[in-house]
């Protein structure tokens, strides 16, 4: 049997980890909206594209 999830309090500094989790969850929400027929595929693609570049900085562009 897998272990029961035990959550520890998060430090405020873990912004990137929380950001990644939030982006993944939002992507799942968009796909769910599309799955239920509330938005079409084109709109979902547009939102996902915007989502993955939401926090992109100049340095990120430099890294490629």
């Amino acid at each position, binding site marked *: 049997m897998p272990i029961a999830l035990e*959550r520890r309090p998060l430090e405020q500094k873990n912004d990137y980890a929380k950001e990644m989790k939030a982006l993944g969850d939002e992507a799942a929400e968009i796909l769910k909206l599309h799955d239920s027929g509330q938005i079409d*595929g084109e709109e979902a693609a547009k939102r996902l594209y915007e989502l993955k570049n939401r926090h992109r900085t100049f340095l990120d562009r430099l890294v490629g």
Partner: protein
Amino acid sequence: MHGGHDKFQSQVRAWLDDDYGRLQRWQRAAAGVFYNRFPRSFRALPIFHWFGRNALAASAPIVALFYGTIGQVTAFWAAGGLFFANVAVWVLGVLSEKKKGNGEAEAEALVRFGDLLSAFKVGAVAKANRDRAIGACLGILEIHARRITKTKKGELSVSLVQYVGSSTTKMTIKYRNPGNLRSVGREFDCSALLGHHACQAGALPRVVHNLSQFGKNLTSPTQSTIDYKSMLFIPLEVATSGGGARLKGFVSFDCQRPYAFYGNRNREIAVTCRPVIDHLKDLLRENG
């Protein structure tokens, strides 16, 4: 012995807290650009071609000097000016190139892929085929991650690391991406495993930009030589029938290049790989 263990614990704590000063962040940014933008191998021919093309465009004053039409100083300044003007025009040409605009097409492919996965619900996959389905999911994750990190085949691998039964100290790797020849099936103690610490500290996705920050305190779970330098962990929380969530383990991406997941890349993986991760969770839930 205790000193080494304590040092490792404090390094893990600092990594989980992302507790680095401004100077270290700048160093990290510089390293991110260095490892991802600077060529890993040197090829003389493209440099010779670039220099030759610009020199040819600036050669007219040198020809004029040869026939005695102009003086040396004039020829030198005119040739130098033409060379740099030609380089400037080349830079403008590069900057004015239209972007290929593949981003939205990739996002649409992702949506269609999600459609396909939801059309084939996990319950429809025969139990005997679930191992193959999990392997295929890891293979798809590897392809996405290779594209995003601009990595060659074989330089990046994806593994599914799971807790053994109800244990919080033992883990096992049952599945790896297809073509990955690293060992599977062995159970090991996970106290020195970074992914385990990531799971226990809130089950958030985590990135290790360069494993060398942990010095020699790290060991491979499968007792093999560690040939990877950067890692990304995505913990897998699986919904239970009671409405809660259980932590089954994590998906580990590891790459032979340091800083492969730096910048927007880890965010892009979080978004792009989400449908596959969700499908993987469904498969694990069905497997019990």
